[in-house]
C-alpha cells in the first residue's frame, strides 16, 4: 500500500467513524424525543388518559339483523322468527362457570340437557362473549331472575330472535337447519371477509335452503355506539346504525303438496322429487325420514344429536339429492328413446319373449316367468318386458347407451340449489376403468351391458336426477336446472329478484319419438303395471314402475320377498308425469325396501298427482291455508 493510498484509507475510515458517531447521536436524540413523549403521556397527562381509560369507553355493540323468512310458492311461511329470552352467562365476567350454574339452578330450572348443551357450546365456540345456559324462558322465569339479578354477576337475560319452523318435519330436507357458529365457521367467515357482519349473530344456515341461501337470508348487522363503564356495562347510547333484515326467500315448493306427499309415505323410508318441467322449479322435495329443524334453533343438545346420528334410518341423510338408487325399470323409457333416436329399433319391430335372454352361457331371467310372448316397443314399456331390453342393450352396446343417457343428465349432478348432491353413476367402460384399482376389474365385460338395459347393474342415480330426466323427456329434450327457490324479496322495498329458468342443455330429440314414449308411458297407467294405482284417475298421465334389487340374486335363485330381511327387500320406484298433453309436473318416487314399484311407489305418485291436479286432499289430513284464503273464509262466514 502506497503512502497516498494509506492516507486515503485513513481519511475514509475516519470519515466513516465520524458518520457512525453522527448516526449514534441521531439515535440518542430520537430516543430522547420518544422518552419526552412518553413522559408527557404517562406522567404529565396520565390523569387525563387514566380517566379516559377508566370510565369513558365507547363500545360498539352489534345489532344482529332479522333473518329473512322462507315462504312456499303460495306465500305460506315455513321458516320464521320469534323473539324469546335466553339466560346468558358471560364466561369472562364470572369466576367459576360451574358454580354460577349451580347457583342459578336454585332459582331457575336447569336440566342436565341444558348443561350438556352449554358445555358443548363452550368447547366449540372460539372466545364466546356470552353463552346461553337456558333458552325460551317463560315470563315467570324472566320476572324471577330480574328480581334476583343483583346476586348474579356475569349473568344476564338476553332477548333474541329464534328461528321457528311451523311445520316441523315437513320439508325439513329442503329447508335445512341452522347451527351455532363454531370455530370452523368463524375461520370460514374470516376468509370470506364477512366476519364483521356476523358479530352478534350466533347461528348460521347449515343445510338446505337455510344453508345455500345464507347470504340472502342473513341481512346486514347494525351497530350501536354505547358508552360503557369500567365493568363493561352500557351507560348510554351515542349513535345507532340500524340493522337491515335479510331477504325473504320464496320457494317453488308447495308446502301443501309436500305435506300430502310426506303423509303418503307414512313411516316408510324413501324420497320423492316433483319438478315443474317448464322451469325446473321443484314442487315437492321429500326425504323420509326427516327431522325437526326446531331442535337445532338454540343449539342442539348432544343427546338429540346423538339420537339423530345413530338412528339406523339416517334421518339427516338427504335422500332426495344424496341417496343413490338403481333406477330399475324406470330406465326403460330412456332406453326406448335411445333405441328410436339411434335407429336401433322401430316401433314395429317385435321380439319373442320366452321369459329369459341367453347371452353366452348365461341366462338373464325376465321378471315375468314364461315371458310376455310377442313384444314390440310399446308393449315393452307397458308390460315392462326385461327380455326386450336385455336384447336391446346388447345390440346398442355400452358406449352408445352411456353416450345417449347423458342427454337426460344421468350420472351428473343437476346443480340444484341445496348442498350435498351426489353424482350417481352412469356406467361406462371409462367409468369402470377409473373406479377400480385391480386391472382385472377395470375391464368392461359385454355381459355387464345386458342388465344395464333394465336399470340394474352399476346404474345408480339420485331421485333428483330421476325427476330431472323425466322432466327433460316430457320437455322434448330441454333440460332445466332444478331449483327450490322461485324468487328473493327485499322485505323493505318489496323488490323481487326472480330465479330465471336455466336451460342446461337441449337434447336434439325427434318429436315423434318423444310422443311415442310418452304414449307408451300413458299405456302403463292405463293398461300396464301402473294401471291398478291409477284406476279411475280423472286426468291423463304417464308413468313407469321400477323395482331395484338391493342384493344380487344367484342365477337360479328366485326372489322371495318373505324370505329376505326387510332391509334387503327391493326398492320400489315410480316415475310419473301429468297431464299427458302438456305436463305440469314430473316426479320420481323411491320407497326403500318397498318391494315392487307398482305396489309401494305408484300409489304415492297417484296421491300426489291427485292433490296437485285436482286438489284432492287425503282423508284426515289438514293442510295450512294462505293468508288470502284465511281472509276469504272470514268474509264468507
Amino acid at each position, binding site marked *: 500500500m502506497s503512502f497516498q493510498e494509506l492516507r*486515503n484509507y*485513513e481519511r475514509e475510515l475516519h470519515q466513516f467513524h465520524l458518520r457512525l458517531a453522527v448516526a449514534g447521536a441521531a*439515535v440518542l436524540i430520537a430516543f430522547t*424525543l420518544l422518552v419526552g413523549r412518553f413522559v408527557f403521556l404517562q*406522567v404529565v397527562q*396520565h390523569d387525563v388518559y*387514566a380517566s379516559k*381509560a377508566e370510565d369513558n369507553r365507547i363500545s360498539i355493540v352489534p345489532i344482529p339483523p332479522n333473518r329473512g323468512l322462507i315462504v312456499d310458492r303460495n306465500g305460506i311461511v315455513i321458516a320464521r322468527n320469534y323473539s324469546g329470552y335466553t339466560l346468558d352467562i358471560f364466561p369472562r365476567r364470572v369466576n367459576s362457570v360451574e358454580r354460577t350454574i349451580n347457583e342459578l339452578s336454585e332459582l331457575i330450572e336447569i336440566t342436565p340437557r341444558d348443561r350438556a348443551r352449554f358445555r358443548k357450546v363452550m368447547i366449540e365456540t372460539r372466545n364466546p362473549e356470552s353463552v346461553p345456559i337456558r333458552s325460551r324462558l317463560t315470563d315467570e322465569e324472566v320476572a324471577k331472575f330480574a328480581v334476583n339479578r343483583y346476586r348474579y354477576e356475569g349473568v344476564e337475560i338476553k332477548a333474541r330472535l329464534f328461528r321457528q319452523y311451523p311445520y316441523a318435519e315437513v320439508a325439513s330436507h329442503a329447508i335445512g337447519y341452522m347451527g351455532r357458529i363454531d370455530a370452523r365457521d368463524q375461520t370460514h367467515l374470516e376468509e370470506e371477509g364477512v366476519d364483521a357482519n356476523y358479530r352478534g349473530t350466533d347461528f348460521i344456515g347449515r343445510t338446505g335452503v337455510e344453508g345455500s341461501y345464507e347470504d340472502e337470508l342473513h341481512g346486514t348487522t347494525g351497530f350501536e355506539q354505547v358508552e360503557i363503564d369500567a365493568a*363493561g356495562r352500557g351507560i348510554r347510547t351515542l349513535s345507532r346504525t340500524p340493522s337491515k333484515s335479510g331477504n325473504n326467500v320464496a320457494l317453488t315448493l308447495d308446502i301443501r303438496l309436500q305435506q300430502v306427499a310426506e303423509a303418503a309415505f307414512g313411516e316408510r323410508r324413501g324420497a320423492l322429487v316433483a319438478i315443474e318441467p317448464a322451469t325446473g322449479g321443484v314442487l315437492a322435495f321429500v326425504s323420509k325420514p326427516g327431522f325437526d329443524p326446531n331442535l337445532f334453533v338454540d343449539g342442539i343438545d348432544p343427546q338429540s344429536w346423538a339420537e339423530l346420528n345413530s338412528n339406523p334410518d339416517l334421518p339427516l341423510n338427504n335422500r332426495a339429492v344424496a341417496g343413490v338408487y338403481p333406477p330399475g325399470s324406470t330406465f326403460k323409457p330412456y332406453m326406448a328413446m335411445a333405441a328410436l333416436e339411434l335407429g336401433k329399433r322401430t316401433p314395429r319391430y317385435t321380439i319373442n319373449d320366452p321369459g329369459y335372454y341367453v347371452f353366452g352361457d348365461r341366462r338373464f331371467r325376465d321378471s315375468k316367468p314364461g315371458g310376455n310372448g310377442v313384444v314390440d316397443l310399446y308393449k315393452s314399456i307397458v308390460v315392462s318386458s326385461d327380455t326386450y331390453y336385455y336384447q336391446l342393450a346388447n345390440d346398442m352396446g355400452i358406449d352408445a347407451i352411456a353416450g345417449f343417457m347423458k342427454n337426460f343428465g344421468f350420472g351428473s349432478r343437476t346443480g340444484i340449489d341445496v348442498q350435498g348432491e351426489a353424482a350417481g353413476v352412469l356406467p361406462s367402460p371409462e367409468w369402470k376403468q377409473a373406479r377400480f384399482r385391480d386391472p382385472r376389474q377395470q375391464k368392461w365385460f359385454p355381459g355387464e351391458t345386458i342388465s344395464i338395459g333394465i336399470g340394474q347393474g352399476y346404474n345408480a342415480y339420485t331421485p333428483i336426477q330421476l325427476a330431472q330426466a323425466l322432466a327433460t323427456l316430457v320437455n322434448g329434450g330441454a333440460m332445466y336446472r332444478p331449483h327450490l327457490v322461485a324468487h328473493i324479496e327485499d322485505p323493505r322495498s318489496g323488490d323481487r329478484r326472480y330465479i330465471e329458468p336455466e336451460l342446461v342443455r337441449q337434447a336434439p330429440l325427434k318429436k315423434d319419438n318423444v310422443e311415442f314414449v310418452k304414449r307408451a308411458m300413458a299405456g302403463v297407467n292405463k293398461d300396464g303395471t301402473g294401471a291398478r294405482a291409477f284406476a279411475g284417475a280423472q286426468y291423463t298421465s304417464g308413468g313407469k314402475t321400477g323395482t331395484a334389487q338391493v342384493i344380487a340374486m344367484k342365477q337360479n335363485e328366485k326372489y322371495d320377498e318373505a324370505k329376505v330381511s326387510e332391509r334387503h327387500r327391493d326398492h320400489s320406484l315410480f316415475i310419473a308425469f301429468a297431464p299427458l298433453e302438456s305436463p305440469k309436473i314430473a316426479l320420481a318416487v323411491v320407497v326403500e325396501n318397498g318391494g315392487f314399484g307398482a305396489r309401494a311407489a305408484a300409489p304415492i305418485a297417484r296421491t300426489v298427482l291427485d292433490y296437485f291436479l285436482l286438489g284432492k286432499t287425503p282423508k284426515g289430513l289438514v293442510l295450512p291455508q294462505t293468508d288470502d284464503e284465511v281472509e276469504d273464509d272470514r268474509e264468507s262466514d
Partner: protein
Amino acid sequence: MALESSFTLRRVGVRLSEGIDQTLLLVILTLSVLGLAALYSASYESPVRVLNQLANLAVAFAAMWIAAQIPPQTLMRFAVPAYVVGLAFLVAVALFGDVVNGARRWLHVGVTRFQPSEMMKLALPLMLAWYFHRKESAIRLRDFVLAALLVAVPVLLIARQPDLGTAALVAAAGFYVIFFAGISWRVLVVVAVLGAASVYPLWTHLHDYQKKRVLTLLDPTTDPLGAGYHIIQSTIAVGSGGLSGKGWLNGTQSHLEFIPERHTDFIFAVFSEEFGLIGNVVLLILYSLLIGRGLVIASGAATIFARLMAGAIALMFFTYAFVNMGMVSGILPVVGVPLPFLSYGGTALLTLFIGAGILMSVQRHRKLVQT
C-alpha cells in the same frame, strides 16, 4: 465414557456458540422474552398465538445462527442475485399478486405465499454495500446517482402496492448505506431541500387512506371511529399506563379489545399500558444497546462491504423501533411497521434475526489489528 460424552457435549456447545456475539444475543433474548410476555397478555383469548410465536422464534434463531456462520466475503456473492430475484418478485407481485385488504402485496409460491417486499429490506442494503465495496475508495457522485436508482426502483414498486410503511423502511435501509458510504453533506442538504419541495406533488399521489392517516395524525379526533381510532386508543393505552404501568395482564385497553392489531403492530400499546414509563425506558435502553453494539461492530469491520452492511442493519433496527413506538404514541403516522423482536409474526422476525446474524458474522471476521 462419561468424560468422553461431556467432552463431546462441550465441543458441540463450543461449535454452536462460535461466531455468536454474546452482547447481541443477550439483548435479543431479553427483547424476545419481553415480547412473549406482552403477547401472552394480548392474546389471553387464544394462547396458541404464544406457542406459534415460540415456533417463529425457534426458526428465527436458527436462521440467525446460520447467517452468523456465513463470512461477509461469501455473503457478498449473494448480493446481486438476491437483489435481482427480489426485484423480479416485486414485478411479479405487481402483475399477479394477491390482493389482501386492498393492497397487492402477496405472491403465491406453491402452497404458501409471501411478501417479496420483506426480502428487499435486506437485499437492497446488500446490493448497495456490494456496489460501493467494488468501487472501493474511488466513489464518485455518479455512483451515488446509480445507487439512488437502485433504491428508487424497488421502493417505488413497493409504494404502489401500496405499502408505504415497508417502502419507507426499504428506502431508509438504502439511504443508510449511501450515507455511510460517504455521500457529501452538501448533496444531502440539496436532496433534503428538494425532498421537502416535492412533498406537495407527492401528497396528491397518495391513496385516500394514506392521506387520511397523515391528517388524522394531526388531529385524531376528526375521525374517532375510522383512521383516528387506532391512534386515540393506543395513546389512551400508553397514557393510562402511567409511571409503572397497570401490571402484567392488567391492561384494560388491551383486554377490553380497544386496541386493534394488538398482537402485531400495536403490541407496544399493550406493553406500555402494563409496564408504564419504566418499562418503556427499559425497552429504549435495550434498543440503544442493540443499536450501539451494531455501530461498534460496524466501526471495527474488516471491509467496506462489512462495515456498510453492519451500519445499515444497526440503523434499520433503530428505524423499526422508532417508527413503531412513534406511531403507537401518536407522533408518527400509522404505517405497518412491527416493533423489532416483540411483534407477533414470523416474516418480520426472520428478517430481523438474519440481520442480527449478519452483524455477528461481521464481528467475527473483524480486523484483528487496528491500523
